């Protein structure tokens, strides 16, 4: 005979095991962004630009690449290593909070997620010290130097990195 505490334990363990587990055929983009392409080489046309956390349904697997269907119905190929069967729950939770605070939501976390500028608490750490206040100003200047998605994409392309790696060209 099972005592209530034992049933509770089993139920809780089952919930724990299955909590956050994605359906087997679904994967998520784990990189900051990724391109869905018409084929498995970087010469193939871009079908869609995907953001971190975008949910994809796997249609086919082929030597390190997945043919997937995005939530908007677009189909294409993506490197398997840029996807994950499930987003890390803590990461998704934390970053999701940031997106929600700016009117975002779902798993479609934007490239620019994360509040801008030094936080007020951090800045207050400088107190009345002129030296530390000068450091605060210099960090705020640093934070204004932003790398856009387009800049990063061009940099990766020029360097045959990321989506443009030589290994992807067959």
């Amino acid at each position: 005979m099972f005592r209530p505490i034992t049933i509770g334990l089993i139920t809780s363990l089952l919930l724990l095991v299955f909590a956050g587990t994605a359906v087997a055929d679904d994967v998520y983009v784990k990189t900051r962004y990724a391109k869905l392409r018409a084929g498995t080489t970087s010469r193939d046309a871009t079908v869609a630009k995907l953001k971190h956390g975008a949910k994809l349904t796997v249609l086919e697997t082929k030597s390190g690449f997945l043919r997937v269907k995005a939530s908007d119905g677009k189909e294409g190929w993506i490197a398997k290593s840029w996807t994950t069967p499930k987003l890390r729950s803590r990461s998704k939770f934390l970053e999701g909070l940031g997106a929600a605070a700016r009117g975002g939501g779902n798993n479609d976390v934007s490239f620019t997620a994360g509040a801008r500028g030094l936080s007020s608490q951090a800045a207050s750490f400088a107190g009345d010290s002129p030296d530390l206040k000068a450091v605060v100003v210099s960090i705020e200047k640093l934070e204004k130097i932003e790398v856009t998605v387009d800049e990063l994409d061009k940099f990766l392309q020029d360097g045959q990195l990321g989506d443009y790696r030589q290994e992807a060209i067959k």
Partner: protein
Amino acid sequence: MRFTQTLAAIVCVALLCGCGAIKDMILRSNKSAALLVGGAQAAASKAPIGIEEERAYGGAIAIKVVQKYGGLVEDEALTRYVGLVGNSVAAFSDRPNIRYHFGVLKSEGINAVSSPGGYVFITVGALRKMKSEAELAGVLAHEVSHITARHALEILKNLKAKSAMVGAAANTIDNPDFFKGIVNAFLDDFLARGLPQDTEFEADMLGTKLLISTGYDPNGLKDFLAGMVVPHGDSHDPFYDTHPDTSVRVKKLELQIKASGATGQNHAERMKKLMKLPELVKADPKTPPVSGAD
């Protein structure tokens, strides 16, 4: 039976909280059960640090790091190039959607430092030693990995928990005294000794995985470190005071790279073309010089 009841209680609390830290506690059930009954305040302090709180702690730590290393080099072209390389590897990390900032420290010492929330700094001295963009990417990937693996955050979380245990009532970042107390306690250890050695090894491993994911030569970090190998303790450079024995790190990375079979881009020429370093830099007179002794 008492053990079963305790375990069930922990599992239920873990489910209610959805908390990784508490799930970890299940694995250490007996010891953790004692912690769990240590009070609601302590339990709350064991909770993961949220992104805004992380940025607050990280920003404050960044302020002190930049001060210690003599300020930031204000050269937009240089900062942008380092930022492009850093963001390239960060884009393929486990936390790709944090806003990362990559700054160059006005120091001829050889070091790189990161702070929670996405702050990564590298000294001019370290840049001067680099022979390729893959080496730069490797060092930045190592620092990004400290952030993605939440190495400093775990220490901050433990400091918060200890503070709660001794009775700090308003243990939030909005309490200036509490906030400064936690940051200063962290900095006392961090600036003198760096992060624990096991986290340095983990950041090496994760950083090299990032190089491979991004398509850089996986030897980047290893090659940079190999150029730094000196008998441990024979240098006054702060790098050797805050990092494990470099030759051990190099050997571990050699094994990892060999097992991966990966190759990638080195981009020595692109770095030479795009990275224009300033003449010998001097720290701002208002800030203390970098010293391995502090």
